[in-house]
Structures are given as structure tokens and as C-alpha cells.
């Protein structure tokens, strides 16, 4: 293929590489929809500030082909090898070993979060994304795609012996009038397909991992899950409570993506896939993982990469934001709901814990100290997992409870410091006037402690605001998750990043102002001043 001579390739690499099917000398290839705006945006990201030589040269020189993938719930694509858990295996891993071998290099797996792999590719941490990434119009505008290495379909899965017989059955409402709730991997083809079909009878619930969706469906938290066929086949033994429902639906192609500048690498990989498909090597790999089917015979029929449809209008900039702003605002409401739902609870629980630790009986102090250490010492994400997948609370309840519990431990320590900072004489004077200890706390000590802790507590509130993004692991699509979904599905990485940041700022700045205002007021009136 073209691009083999190293010298000519390095000359071409400073600008978007022409598609191999297009022999042209124009700077911008006619079929590419790259606009000046996206080029400027990419430059603004400063991920690739200077021209790089085509990655193929580096691969050949370094004898290593690095590819990005996510082994979380990654069977049969790429997952920890059961025989040797520190190494990774899977049909894509084996395919990449063959492809790298064809280039005289060895393949190196690089872990990344699935829906962020393309961004990491931009950051040059690896040179190709290989992880069940579907060919899409949007992605092929901003990245180079190879020919397909697998033709996937989507498989509906549901609890064994359920009433649903096929995807078509979901177009009738449930007996109780509710919508069917279908779990999908966020940003996957199943997400896109289900979203298009969603409406009065189907509600899409998005998970960060394919197996999370299966687990929640097996738990009975959701009705069904829509999965890529390979994952459905691979995990059917691990989720005995689930069965495949009806024939697979939809269809699409898994492709390898490279950066736009790395046409030579893309072409080399493309050629390699063609060779593996023709030689029957791919079939041997797929049969080993139980994912071969007749559909895959078509793999040999591709002559090269799938070309993006020409002339299709693609929105950028303001237009993109205008079209999707409703989704951003909905997600902002989720963020606000989680924050304002959980912070008052966290403050109340925190105060109770602090009071218990300072004035409670000995056994309670020990218990509460253990509570604080346990909650503080474990990640929020794990706590959300327990509330959602083990206790099986609804996502909103789990999200608010998780954030409230997690932050209550921090608030408790802040309040404890605040209570200790109130001079002992205040409590003694109150007791000497005949107040009960509780009245003295309520009327005299706590009001003064609260004034002291306003700045750190509002600081924590702002932190919590942004920590709500962790709730995406339990299907709540808040602002950060929505950004990720929109950026991935539309390619508007910069536009949505700016809009999302602006919304976060618009929401957290008033809090900062309140914090600073309260600090100023405390400064002016003295640490122990303030209105009752």
C-alpha cells in the first residue's frame, strides 16, 4: 500500500492524511468533513502541538505496537487471563499479537476507560484503539478506521423464563403501564440502538461496564439488557439467571481506530486484518472464543476501510450545542438534585456523628469513630456499588444515600473541630444557668460551631458537587457523564467540554460566593460573632 516509504510519509504527516482510496494532492481531502474549526479545536487542545512522524515508523523502530483497550468486564475482547491473572487475553489480544507480528513488532496492551479510549489515543499514550469499537460516521470523521475485523449484532438478554420473547415485544407497554427498562453499556452501539428505539415503552439505563448491566438485570433491578453478541455469549455462564431473548438485532462492524495523521499505520493494520481474514486465522481465533458465526464470512469481502458517507452534514460549534443543550440541562438537573439532596443529609448526619463522638457514652464514641474511619477510608464508588448492586436500592436513593454517607464522615470531622473550637466556658456558663446539656449544645455551642465551620463546609459542598459524577456508575447520567456521551457520539469534544465547564461554574460559583461572603462576615464580626 502507499505510505510504505518512510520519507514521503513523514512529509505528509503534518496535515490530515489523505484517504488511501483518494489519490489527490489537495491539502484537505474532499471526503473529509474536517472543518477549520475542528482543526483549530484540536490545536487548542494542544495534545499534538508539533508534527509527529507516522506512528508506523515508531512501531517498526521500537518493535512495539501499543493499543488501548479496557479489560473491565472485557470478555471476550480483552480480559485478565484466568490462567495467569496478571496478563491479559481475549480475541482482540490474540488478533493484535498476530497483527503486530506482521509488522515485525510485539503488541502491548494499554488499559484505559472504555468510553475515553479515543481521547487517550489523541494524547498519544497508544497508537490504536481496539476494543469492540464500532464503526460510526462520527468517529470516522475524526479518526482513521480499518476494515471491520468482526461483524457484531446486539443480543437482548433477560431473566430466565421471563415474559419477553423478542425485541419486538418491548414495543408493547408493560402490564403495569411502566416502560421496559433496558440496561446498556454507555456510548456503545447498544446504547445508540436502544436510544433510537426508546420512547413510550422503552427506557434506556446506562452503565459504565457491560457486566454491570448484566448484574443489575440478573438482580431484577432492571427488566432487560442489550449486549453485543460476543459479550452475551462469553458471559452467559457467569450470569446463569440470564438468557438470550430472540434473534440478535441490528448489526455493525468492529474496527481499529488510529489517529488521523497515522494513515500508514492504519493501512498496515487494514492490510493485516485482510490477511488474517483470508487465511482463516481470524476464524480460528473466533472459534476459540466461541464467537464465530456465519455472518463473519463477509469479513473477507471488504476491500479496505469503510468510507464515511460523503456530503453528510455534520453539526459543529454552536449548532451542536443548540441541538443537544436540552440533554446538558437535564444532566445538570441530575447533578443539582444529587448535590442538594445529599449535602443537607451529610451535614445533619455529620453533626450527629460529631456530637455523639464528643458527648456520647464510650461505646457510641468507639462506634462512631469506626464509622468515620470506614467511610472515609473506602472510595465513594465502592460505597455506591454496595448500595446499588448489593442492597439493590433504586439509583436515586443509592446515589443520594451514598454521597450523604460519604460526606457525612468528612462533615463529622469538620463539626468536631468546630465544636472543640468553642471555648469550654461557653458550655460551663450555660450549665451554670441551669440548662440541660442538650439545651446548652443546641442554643449555645452548636450555633457558634456552625459559624466556624461555614467556610470548610461550603468548600466540601463544592467538592461534592463535582463528586456527583461518580454516580454514573449506578446509571445516573449527570453532567460529566452526559458530556462524555455527547462528546463521544458527536465528536464535539471541545464544544461540549466548554459548555459543561461553563454549567459547572455557573452552578458552583454561587456557592463559592456564599462561602467567601460568610468568611468575610465572620472576619468582620470576629470568630465568635454573627447574628443569631
Amino acid at each position: 500500500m502507499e505510505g510504505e516509504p518512510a520519507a514521503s510519509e513523514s512529509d505528509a504527516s503534518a496535515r490530515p492524511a489523505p484517504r488511501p482510496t483518494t489519490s489527490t494532492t489537495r491539502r484537505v481531502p474532499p471526503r473529509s468533513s474536517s472543518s477549520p474549526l475542528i482543526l483549530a479545536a484540536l490545536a487548542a487542545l494542544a495534545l499534538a502541538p508539533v508534527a509527529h512522524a507516522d506512528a508506523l515508523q515508531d512501531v517498526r523502530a521500537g518493535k512495539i505496537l501499543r493499543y488501548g483497550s479496557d479489560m473491565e468486564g472485557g470478555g471476550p475482547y480483552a480480559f485478565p487471563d484466568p490462567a495467569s491473572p496478571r496478563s491479559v487475553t481475549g480475541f482482540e489480544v490474540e488478533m493484535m499479537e498476530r497483527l503486530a507480528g506482521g509488522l515485525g513488532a510485539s503488541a502491548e496492551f494499554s488499559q484505559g476507560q472504555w468510553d475515553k479510549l479515543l481521547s487517550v489515543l489523541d494524547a498519544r499514550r497508544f497508537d490504536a484503539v481496539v476494543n469492540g469499537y464500532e464503526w460510526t460516521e462520527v468517529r470516522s470523521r475524526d479518526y482513521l478506521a480499518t476494515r471491520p475485523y468482526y461483524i457484531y449484532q446486539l443480543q437482548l438478554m433477560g431473566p430466565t423464563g421471563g415474559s419477553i420473547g423478542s425485541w419486538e415485544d418491548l414495543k408493547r407497554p408493560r402490564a403495569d403501564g411502566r416502560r421496559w427498562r433496558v440496561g446498556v453499556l454507555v456510548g456503545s452501539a447498544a446504547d445508540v440502538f436502544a436510544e433510537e428505539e426508546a420512547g413510550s415503552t422503552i427506557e434506556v439505563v446506562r452503565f459504565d461496564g457491560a457486566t454491570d448491566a448484566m448484574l443489575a438485570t440478573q438482580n431484577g433491578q432492571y427488566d432487560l439488557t442489550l449486549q453485543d453478541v460476543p459479550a452475551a455469549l462469553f458471559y452467559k455462564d457467569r450470569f446463569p439467571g440470564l438468557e438470550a431473548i430472540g434473534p440478535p438485532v441490528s448489526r455493525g462492524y468492529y474496527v481499529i481506530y488510529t489517529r488521523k495523521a497515522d494513515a500508514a499505520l492504519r493501512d498496515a493494520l487494514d492490510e493485516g486484518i485482510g490477511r488474517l481474514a483470508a487465511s482463516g486465522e481470524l476464524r480460528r481465533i473466533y472459534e476459540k472464543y466461541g464467537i464465530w458465526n456465519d455472518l463473519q464470512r463477509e469479513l473477507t469481502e471488504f476491500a479496505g476501510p469503510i468510507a464515511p458517507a460523503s456530503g453528510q452534514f455534520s453539526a459543529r460549534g454552536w449548532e451542536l450545542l443548540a441541538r443537544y443543550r436540552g440533554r446538558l440541562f437535564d444532566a445538570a438537573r441530575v447533578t443539582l438534585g444529587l448535590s442538594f439532596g445529599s449535602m443537607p443529609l451529610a451535614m445533619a448526619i455529620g453533626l450527629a456523628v460529631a456530637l455523639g463522638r464528643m458527648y456520647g457514652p464510650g461505646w457510641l464514641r468507639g462506634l462512631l469513630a469506626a464509622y468515620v474511619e470506614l467511610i472515609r477510608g473506602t472510595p465513594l464508588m465502592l460505597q455506591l456499588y454496595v448500595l446499588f448492586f448489593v442492597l439493590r436500592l433504586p439509583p436515586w436513593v443509592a446515589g443520594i444515600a451514598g454521597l450523604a454517607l460519604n460526606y457525612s464522615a468528612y462533615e463529622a470531622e469538620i463539626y468536631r473541630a468546630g465544636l472543640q473550637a468553642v471555648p469550654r466556658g461557653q458550655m460551663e456558663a450555660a450549665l451554670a444557668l441551669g440548662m440541660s446539656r442538650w439545651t446548652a449544645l443546641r442554643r449555645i455551642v452548636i450555633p457558634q460551631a456552625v459559624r466556624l465551620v461555614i467556610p470548610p463546609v461550603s468548600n466540601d459542598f463544592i467538592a461534592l458537587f463535582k463528586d456527583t459524577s461518580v454516580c454514573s456508575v449506578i446509571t445516573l447520567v449527570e453532567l460529566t457523564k452526559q458530556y462524555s456521551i455527547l462528546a463521544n457520539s458527536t465528536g464535539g469534544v471541545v464544544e461540549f467540554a466548554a459548555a459543561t465547564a461553563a454549567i459547572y461554574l455557573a452552578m458552583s460559583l454561587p456557592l463559592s460566593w456564599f462561602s467567601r461572603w460568610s468568611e468575610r462576615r465572620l472576619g468582620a464580626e470576629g470568630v465568635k460573632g454573627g447574628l443569631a
Partner: protein
Amino acid sequence: MIVVEGLVKRHGVVEVLRGVDLAVAKGDVACLIGPSGGGKSTFLRCLNGLERFQAGRVAIGDLELTAEQTPAEHARAARRVCRRMGMVFQAFNLFAHQTVLQNVIEAPVQVLGMGRNEAVERARALLDRVGMADRLDARPRELSGGQQQRVAIARALAMGPEVMLFDEPTSALDPRMTGEVLGVMTDLARDGQTMIVVTHAMGFARKVASVVHVFGEGRVVESGEPGRVFDAPAHEATRSLLAEVRAA
């Protein structure tokens, strides 16, 4: 009206009070004097239950604090005692987040359940009596030490206590402010208020006290009318204390 018998207080191995017997009658102004570390303040804090003790008993009318009470029993008894005994602290301890008026009405409203209007009316009268009627809306930090202490006296008086305890009320004040506070206390004594005063202000003790108790090393070493104690001290500890005061 107050009878203390065999009061023993230890902080760890340090014996702060080593068996104190003392009685205060209605209308008495009892001044407790003695060297620092003699246990005077601790004694006062045992009287109203701010501190527990290891042996002995304190009887205030029909109420009793004993070493044998459980913490809960002691807290309950102390609360009842505190409704009948006001206390004024060396560090004033005004409620820092409240105004002068709020400080004075707080306990009558919260503890006695008094209506707000009545409480305010009484507070105004008391603050007038201590010369602070013109600073009702001031915050404690805006007041001088002497002003704060006069508000603290009004705050304690607002509960209508049978006995007022003063714990070195002028030790944190300069001479002029000391004069203001002692003036208020002298007026109170003249009006027949029963008072127990821990103080280093010997002039006040000599002039106002009906009885002086001299504390030394955790005991009451000498008691008597101020004229007798100051002019003809019977105990060595008293003599050295008075010599120190004169030298200072």
C-alpha cells in the same frame, strides 16, 4: 442554707480539696481568700455541680450533691442546684453569638419557660441595675471586660438565684474596671443577696464580707468576721497571705 461536709476533690493523685466543711446562711456574704492553688475555685465549682467530687456532700436547702451519685443522678441534681445558684466567671463567658439582651433572657426563656416579653422587661431592669441598659444590642466582643462582667452578673441574676457564686470576678480586669464590678457587687450585698465570693480583692472582702474563709492547701484554715481575720489572723497561712498582699 448551704452546708458542705467533708468535701474531697482529687485530680488524679493530686488532692485539691482535703475535706472541707463550711456553712453559708441566708444573707451571708462569704468571701473565700487564700493563695492561688488553694482550692477556692474548685470548691466553688463543686458547689453548683460543674465538677464532681470524691467524698463528702453539699446540701443546698432540700437539694443534695454527693460523691455517691451516678453521673446521671449528679447531672440531674446539679441542674436543679444551678437554677437556684447563679455563677459569675473570671473570664465572663458571655454567649459570644448573642447580644447583651439575648444573653440575659436566654436562661429565663429556655430554662424557666418565661415569656419573652416578661424576660425582656426583667432583663432591662437588671441591666439598668448594673449600668448596662444603654448597650442592649451590643455584642460581647464590643464591650470592655468590666462591661462584660456586669452583663454576666445581670445574666446570673435573671434566674432569680438564692445564692450568687463569684469566681474571681475581677482578676481579669484593670483597676478602674475592677471598681465598676465591685461596686455592683457591693450594691447586691447591701440588698441582702446571699453571695459566695472567691477573690483576691482584700479591700472588698474587708468592707463587704460578713464572713471570711481562708483556704490553704485544700482546707479551710481559718474563718471569721473580716475585721478579726484581717487584723488578728490566727493562722500562719493567713499571716503570710496578708503580708504578700501588703507587699504587692
